[in-house]
């Protein structure tokens, strides 16, 4: 066990290291000069070209952009080892503090949406598997297809129009307050539910078709209990999916966050991209890689906890 743990941790570290290298390079490959963006673009008065060049060079020096990409990377890793994520180009604040401010609201939204999505997905998925081939199943499929093909902003804005403007039961502000959580969480949950429905329905149907369930049914096992038994095996792929959804939610549901003015990490990353804020983007990407690796581990642990016997057989699937 200790050896396994060591190997896992080692793998994690290598992943994060390689990822950080790739991220660092890619962020710098993207077009645009952060120094130029800081000096300002249009809507202002044009500079004298010579004065502009001087200021630009000073600024680039100050921002540490004049060295080679490799030396920039080394100095970034250096400060990283002292647990320093650097200072944002745009706001001049500590990246760690900025991410720290936004991470809780992102986690809150992601967690709630995940619960809503899973509850709806499980219920509807089970029902449509049990009633497969009925009108209910067909309606669910149509709804799933609909939800999977309508842009998130349409649903978000319509909900805001109805609930905030017409009924006045929802407040539009930039605060990540609990009273403002339900609407973005519900929207995200609804948009994410179809994939859970799909997974639960398909796996449950497949389990219900298995020989052992069929024989149990023929021996007189109640159908509710049969579903219950089959669910044990459906849970594993569902957990896999939850892990995936959670990853994509915390990396930032940009559309939902922006429509509901929810101050999360998606907006942070987007601003980082638009302002070419290298330290912010690097910090964000690093935190994301770490989270993905940790979520991955948690999913694995959950598998073991749910079914220790399955550990050996299902360990592979747990990697998902």
């Amino acid at each position, binding site marked *: 066990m200790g050896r396994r743990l060591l190997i896992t941790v080692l793998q994690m570290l290598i992943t994060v290291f390689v990822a950080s290298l790739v991220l660092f390079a890619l962020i710098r490959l993207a*077009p*645009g*000069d952060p120094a130029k*963006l*800081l*000096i*300002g*673009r*249009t*809507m*202002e*008065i*044009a*500079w*004298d*070209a010579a004065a*502009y060049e001087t*200021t630009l060079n000073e*600024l680039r020096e100050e921002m540490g952009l004049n060295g080679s990409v490799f030396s920039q990377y080394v100095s970034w890793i250096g400060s990283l080892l002292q647990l320093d994520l650097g200072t944002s180009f*745009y*706001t*001049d*604040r500590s990246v760690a503090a*900025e991410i720290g*401010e936004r991470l809780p609201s992102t986690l809150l939204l992601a967690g709630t949406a995940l619960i809503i999505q899973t509850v*709806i997905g499980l*219920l*509807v998925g089970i*029902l449509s598997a049990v*009633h497969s081939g009925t009108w209910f199943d067909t*309606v669910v499929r149509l*709804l799933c297809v*609909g*939800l999977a093909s*309508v842009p998130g*902003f*349409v649903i978000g*804005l*319509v*909900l*805001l*129009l109805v609930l*905030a*403007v*017409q009924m*006045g039961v929802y*407040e*539009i*502000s*930039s*605060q990540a307050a609990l009273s403002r959580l339900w609407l973005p969480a519900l*929207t995200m949950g609804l948009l994410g*539910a179809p994939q859970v429905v799909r997974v639960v329905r398909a796996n449950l149907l497949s389990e219900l078709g298995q020989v052992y369930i069929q024989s149990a049914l023929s021996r007189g096992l109640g*159908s509710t209990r049969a579903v219950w038994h089959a669910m044990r095996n459906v849970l594993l792929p569902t957990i896999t999916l939850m892990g995936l959804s959670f990853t994509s939610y915390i990396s930032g549901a940009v559309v939902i966050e*922006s*429509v509901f*003015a929810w*101050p999360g990490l998606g*907006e942070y990353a987007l*601003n980082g991209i638009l302002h070419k804020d290298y330290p912010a983007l690097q910090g964000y990407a690093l935190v994301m890689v770490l989270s993905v690796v940790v979520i991955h581990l948690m999913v694995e642990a959950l598998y073991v906890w749910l079914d220790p016997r399955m550990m050996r057989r299902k360990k592979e699937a747990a990697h998902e």
Partner: protein
Amino acid sequence: MNRKKIIWPMLVLLILILAGCSGNQPVTEGSESAAPTNEPTSQTDSKAPEELIIADQEIAAALDPVQPLTSSYLVAIGAGETLFKADAEGKIQPILADSAEAVDAATWEIRLKPNAQFWSGKKLDAEAVVASLERSRELDKQIMPYIQDLTFSAIDESTLQVKTARANMDVPLNLSSYQTLIHNAEASYDSVEHMDLTGMYAVTAFEPQKRMELAINENYWGPKPTIARVVHEQISDEQTRMLSVLSGNSHIAQKMPVSAISQLQAEEAVTLSTTPASNTQTVYLNLNRLKFQDVKVRQALAWSVNREELIVQAAEGQSFPVTTWLSSNPAFAEARNAVYTRYDLDRAGQLLDEAGWVLDGSGVRMKDGEPLSIKLMTWGGDRALGETLQYQWTQLGIQAEVQHGDYSLIETARESGEWDAFIEAWSTFGEPFTLLSGQYAPTGGGNYGGFDDAKTNELLQQLSEASDEASRHALALEVNAHVAEQAPVISLYPRSQITAISRNLEGFVDHFRPFENLVNENLKFVSP
């Protein structure tokens, strides 16, 4: 199968999902019925609120006025002030300054308001102003164009002396830009408590890029405002901002989408301020390209632009045509229709014929076996503008292409020289010489196309030497018209900034610089 047990949660879920799904159809009724159903919210506001909430695309990211754009937000929200300010007509008025006087061609003396003081109660003396401007010069990367030719010194406690490197500079105009915000240089600006500015509102709480709260500054030197508190809130999505003002959650919503105009006009609860800003949407042409070195080709492009149609298609009618660059500045409004007095496709075609670009059988203009093509780059909200221009130039037989993307793509193309044309909108408010030389002198930072014209350079030289206001004005107009004829750039129209204001708020002033003139002391709530 135990169906009854299963049916009820199924129904609940169905309703839930349907509620979410119904996004598809009922929108039509929704948006149309939005106006009448809005009454309940305005009624809850009838008890005049004490807090003014302003929803903006972006708010300050830091408290220190030398950080990028922070000073602009601090001025807009009434927290910070400059020595001078442009009024709604574009005239420069003293704010923290009491008066300004040009002692000689290169020296100004500025007297400060005798009672002006910072939030902390510290007196605003000449030393403090010099310290503030020098701090900004050192730390604010965007202030250079405004003060690079100025040297500041304190003559006595209330008099500031400004020496200029060039003769006849308009110092008050330069000191009206938000970058020159006067702040206490001894304060540290690392927290709300450590800020020290002069404005009528003082910051009480701050969450970067989220929310800034302000309350009346009890030490304010001028007439105090009536609204007790102001909240500046960042809501980056434009449609959400619109919904926030419609729902009554905010009272002023900045930077409304032009596409929302028709809906907002129909609303009972809001009024609109749609003053075109003093900047010009301009197509910059790359004069290093052989085809654009021919002035006739450039003129043809300018004549074949139907500005009225552009304004309808790309700006929902919320602007006016501008045929010369400087004329979006209120002071040069007389030149709005100069040179390209009308949309003239025939004349454009004739010019291209003369230049050797003749129509072939398929309706494309060819010369030496090459089609006349132009690739126009756009960014931000200008996609529709690019698309309409593309359509208009196509009518002339030009192979027009639009590439819409992030600003960085334009920047990259500019560095490599691999571009035909792109759209930008620089400010046209400022000293004419600074503005025009920034755009058209060979060393100008905004002279992207490499325009280098002997007559323009000579006129600019005369402009920099002109000693009286009238001749400067006349020369600026002459440069402006001459450049329009040479057409290194094509001026289209000023960008409009649209602000939605709740009807229960009174005293909002339309201003051509709405991004720095949001709050004034006369704002007050009224019951509708």
